């Protein structure tokens, strides 16, 4: 890089900086520096304080409610009897569906873009489009899920659905999906797909070129190279990104709300078409009520949600650790 370019990059050249700051005395400049450091410390500790106050408040309001009965009972009009059984299982189902759909599609897209795609207008359009999708508000994805999955674009009437199998059994399918767990999981898939794609792309990009070149030189096809060399080498990073995406999915309430899931559910999902609700939505429901009893329930629900998130992140750390050791 030329000196002129450096000067441009910094706004001005080092000599100019020196000239500009020369009139101020050494003492004054030191004082400014120390003052700014104080500002830095104040602002940064603000973040720590906020986190501490938030966790403290939630714990203070919610920990007394956090019993086994809370995890094992359904929603109720009486705060004393209410629990999170339905939303907890709903979140687990929806998150599992989301992972099963988002991982193959997201990683597949990343592999295509990083390993196979030639430089073309279409490729750069796909890349631009993914970065734009990441900025779409999640409630808009809810509208997409409502129209595409819950109603199948209105092609099949909800009053006269096409059904396969026994409504009580595990293998029950119904078109349109309505507001069942499948519609919820697929909607969340759309929300987290950009995250999975971008993090997988970064993971694939971090694999050294020489590994690929070695495999190709031995006569492996591009797919064999990807499947046996590149992908295994990038799996720890991909899994980290995937768990980040799942953490996002399990905390999303807005897209599920748009699907129109019922507020009171006294059952856990039994198949892909079952009614469900999710933890964040139940928390939203409780937090929005004026009575203090429901606020305590909301706080206890938040503790459960944060515990699930903590477990996810612990799993991510363990996976990363193990795979790094193995390779």
């Amino acid at each position, binding site marked *: 890089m030329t000196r002129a370019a450096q000067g441009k990059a910094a706004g001005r050249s*080092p000599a100019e900086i020196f000239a500009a700051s020369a009139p101020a005395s050494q003492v004054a400049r030191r004082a400014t*520096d120390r003052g700014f450091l104080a500002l830095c410390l104040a602002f940064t500790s603000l973040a720590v304080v906020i986190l501490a106050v938030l966790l403290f408040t939630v714990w203070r309001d919610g920990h007394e409610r956090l019993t086994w009965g809370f995890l094992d009972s359904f929603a109720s009009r009486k705060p004393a009897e209410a629990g999170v059984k339905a939303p907890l299982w709903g979140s687990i189902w929806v998150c599992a569906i989301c992972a099963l759909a988002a991982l193959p599609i997201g990683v597949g897209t990343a592999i295509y873009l990083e390993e196979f795609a030639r430089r073309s207008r279409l490729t750069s359009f796909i890349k631009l489009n993914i970065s734009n999708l990441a900025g779409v508000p999640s409630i808009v994805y809810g509208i997409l899920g409502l129209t595409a999955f819950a109603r199948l674009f209105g092609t099949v009437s909800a009053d006269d659905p096409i059904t396969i199998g026994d409504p009580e059994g595990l293998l029950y399918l119904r078109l349109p999906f309505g507001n069942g767990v499948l519609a919820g999981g697929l909607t969340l898939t759309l929300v987290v797909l950009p995250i999975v794609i971008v993090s997988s792309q970064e993971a694939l990009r971090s694999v050294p070129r020489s590994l690929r070149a070695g495999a190709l030189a031995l006569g492996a096809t591009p797919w064999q190279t990807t499947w046996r060399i590149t992908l295994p080498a990038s799996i720890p990073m991909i899994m980290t990104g995937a768990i980040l995406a799942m953490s996002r999915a399990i905390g999303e309430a807005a897209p599920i709300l748009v699907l129109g899931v019922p507020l009171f559910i006294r059952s856990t999902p039994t198949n892909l078409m079952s009614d469900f609700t999710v933890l964040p939505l139940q928390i939203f429901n409780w937090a929005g009520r004026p009575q203090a009893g429901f606020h305590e329930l909301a706080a206890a629900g938040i503790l459960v949600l944060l515990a699930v998130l903590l477990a996810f992140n612990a799993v991510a750390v363990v996976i990363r650790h193990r795979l790094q050791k193995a390779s």
Partner: protein
Amino acid sequence: MKQEHAAVSAAARAAADASRRGALRSRAARDGAERVIRCALFGCALLSIASTFTILAILLWQSATFFSMPEVSLADFLTGTTWSPLLGAEKQFGIWPLVAGTMLVTAIAAAFALPVGLVAAVYLSEYAPRRVRTALKPVLEVLAGIPTVVYGFFALTVITPFLHDRISEGFGTYNALGAGIAVGIMILPIVASLSEDALRAVPRSLRDAAYAMGSTRFDVSTKVVVPAALSGIMASWLLAITRAIGETMIVALAAGNLARMTVDPRAEVQTMTAYMVQIFLGDAPATGIEYRSSFAVATVLFAITLGLTVVGNLVLRAFREEYD
């Protein structure tokens, strides 16, 4: 072309020979499988484009249905300053109160998070000792990972009571400032960690040169590193603002449901997203005018956030400084 064809048929013949001799996999079969896999991967990539176009199609189609209703006109929607979709006979659909509510909450969030986030990023990248950095990074990650409904609860139970008791009695249960601060807390880690990435990408040599001239850390940070990383910082700001505009659960819990044009931070306001929540939670019939109006609001929201994302990408590209 001809040569290629010849090569392919030669390969096919070789493959046929090989399979007659009992080779495990012929080259033709391998190439065929390769092509199938390639197509499947391409299909995955096309899915993201399909979802964009489906969103566009749904929003435009539903908005067109809404505007074709006799009670509404596109001109009133885009210029009107009264939003009263639930008032029986006097329904009025002017989008500006919802946009104003969104902008007020976003402005409050930005006024809090953009400076605080940038200063925190400068501290982490330029000042903090390594041990402090490794302790602070997880705090930001935890803040970034907390679901937004939790911040909504925080706004209702901590921020708003604090404002009411300590600042002014004028703050009701629902107010723009409490919601705005909560949204600001939500976007703070985005600004801090993305800006820090941008600051750290500035090469050491620039800093060393400035230090060699006798600069203090403050001089180096504000006159060399921040200007050099400006494109990344601005991109992080734009992304954070986009998130704030699209944020739903915090404002639905803490900002209220009163669509009006005001800049008073104590006032109850309704944002675009909060209106959509109100409609989708309620029992408005799916063919009714209120229900359809939420799709028109969603179209405006989508247009604003997409516009900001595109601008963010342009900023990153236009002002990027390339270092080796």
